[in-house]
């Protein structure tokens, strides 16, 4: 990308695509000549199709879609994109402010009650927002600063003003399609387009912020302070359930701890597996359960952190919703607890070393006697006892 933008090349833009000067060797020349139906590329003018075009007597090759260049600019030139973003936001006076991501209420009020008992008495009715907040209030100590931040948060006027300022922001240079243009023109156009993209993204973020502010306008001050506290902190763990926010895109990792459990092998011997966090991440584009910690299990390929759990009949959902997150976490937990069949020795590895030519993972250090105190007392359950 740097080579292209800083080069002295002449480029052509046509139909939303970028065309670069065609590079030659004898075979390319032969191909181009046959496509043109003439001996050499500098002679005729018939077009061989949209892949190669001839402009001012020179051949140009179709390469990238201009919109792809804008979309992928952040990935290709991360540092430059970040610098552009910062300078653009500074110019429009967009300062960092406390926001509640739309996914946080879903995690708090829909996923958390599924895994954590938020009420004293069991009930088939789903926990309400008020009940969840009451439970969180009983378990968390919120610093006083967040109570003060509530008043600023519910005041939507500054946000509306900012949105009005951002409307119509960003220059709009149009790239000429009439002939070759120098690479520096493309560079200038690309920077403007990236700035427009930054502004569009920022507008969407502010609008989402407005929606969340409207949503929590009537929430009691103490409860809203809890939400703001969690939004700012970005992590929580209560009774084996938790979430983490990470990365620049504010992705969430939602997890549930397995606790210690035991698995039985072909000979009925027991293996005590330590606690681990089964999680789904919004980073990867699909909600496939994985184990956050360095862990080994028959359904994990290696012995490292962040491994996806082997699931045969599960299609990881792509859309973020409470139901999908719960389903993925449940599937991951069930696979670790109940997936291993000692008679079939299914999964990547078998617990007992029989019938294997080369074993990549050993589980012998997890082996415990059948009268282990935790198993006898029921503290640790043999989860695949009935498979």
């Amino acid at each position, binding site marked *: 990308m740097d080579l292209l933008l800083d080069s002295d090349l002449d480029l052509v833009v046509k139909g939303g695509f970028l065309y670069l000067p065609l*590079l*030659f*060797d*004898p075979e390319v*020349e032969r191909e181009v000549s046959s496509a043109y139906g003439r001996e050499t*590329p*500098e002679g005729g003018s018939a077009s061989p199709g949209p892949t190669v075009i001839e402009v001012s007597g020179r051949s140009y090759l179709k390469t990238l879609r201009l919109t792809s260049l804008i979309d992928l600019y952040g990935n290709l030139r991360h540092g430059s994109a970040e610098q552009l973003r910062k300078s653009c936001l500074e110019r429009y006076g967009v300062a960092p402010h406390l926001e509640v991501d739309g996914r946080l209420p879903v995690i708090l009020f829909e996923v958390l009650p599924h895994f954590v008992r938020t009420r004293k008495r069991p009930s088939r009715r789903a926990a309400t927002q008020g009940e969840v907040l009451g439970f969180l209030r009983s378990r968390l100590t919120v610093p006083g600063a967040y109570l003060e931040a509530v008043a600023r948060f519910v005041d939507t006027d500054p946000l509306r003003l900012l949105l009005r300022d951002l409307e119509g922001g960003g220059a709009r240079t149009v790239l000429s399609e009439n002939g070759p243009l120098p690479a520096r023109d493309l560079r200038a156009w690309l920077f403007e387009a990236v700035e427009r993209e930054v502004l569009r993204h920022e507008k969407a973020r502010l609008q989402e912020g407005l929606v969340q502010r409207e949503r929590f306008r009537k929430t009691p001050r103490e409860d809203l302070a809890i939400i703001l506290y969690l939004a700012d902190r970005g992590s929580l763990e209560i009774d084996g359930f938790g979430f983490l926010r990470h990365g620049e895109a504010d992705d969430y990792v939602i997890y549930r701890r397995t606790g210690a459990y035991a698995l039985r092998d072909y000979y009925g011997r027991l293996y005590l597996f330590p606690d681990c966090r089964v999680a789904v991440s919004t980073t990867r584009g699909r909600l496939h359960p994985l184990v956050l910690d360095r862990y080994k299990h028959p359904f994990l390929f290696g012995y490292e952190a962040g491994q996806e759990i082997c699931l045969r009949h599960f299609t990881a959902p792509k859309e973020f919703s409470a139901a999908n997150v719960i389903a993925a976490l449940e599937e991951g937990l069930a696979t670790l607890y109940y997936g291993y069949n000692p008679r079939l020795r299914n999964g990547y590895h078998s617990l007992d070393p029989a019938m294997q030519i080369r074993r990549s993972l050993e589980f012998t250090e997890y082996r415990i006697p059948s009268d282990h105190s935790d198993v006898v007392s029921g503290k640790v359950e043999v989860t695949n006892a009935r498979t």
Partner: protein
Amino acid sequence: MRGRKVDFLTEIRRDRLRKRKRQPFQPTLFARISAIVREHRLTEAFLARLDADEAPLRADIDRMIPSEREPLVVPLYSLVREEEYRVTRGVLERVSNPYLACAQSPEDILLSGALFARNSNLPPERLSRWDFDTLLACELAKEEVQEIRAHRGTGTGPKRPILSDAIRERIERLEAFIAGVEGA
């Protein structure tokens, strides 16, 4: 009969093994010439020099110090801009001698024809090691030595011994130069 059969089979196997043996990949002549064109930014003006077929200048051996050169890095594959391609094609159309495959500079391209015309049996190692103007100077030196030896003793009169000393000195210098290039 049996022995002949075995020989025949062995021969087939050996032949197949030989065919299967990997040969080192050699860049094409196009890749070499295009590398020179790109590195030295050669233009159509260079083709005009080739068309003019300039006679090589007789090198001054007294001032010439034979020096080995850094080998040219030729890419395995070459893709060049249209104008560079035209120059490369122009060179390949105008110059067709086996020494072009060892050329490492525009001067080598210009002198390759003259060098091949004077001596078509130079080994590839020597062609890669020395500039073509050094090799051409060597060939010219050899010619000069032969020429002097052919006319040696023809001079008459009182100046003969003085000329003989100068000629002897010249021959020694030429032979030293030739030995420096060929004997290295």
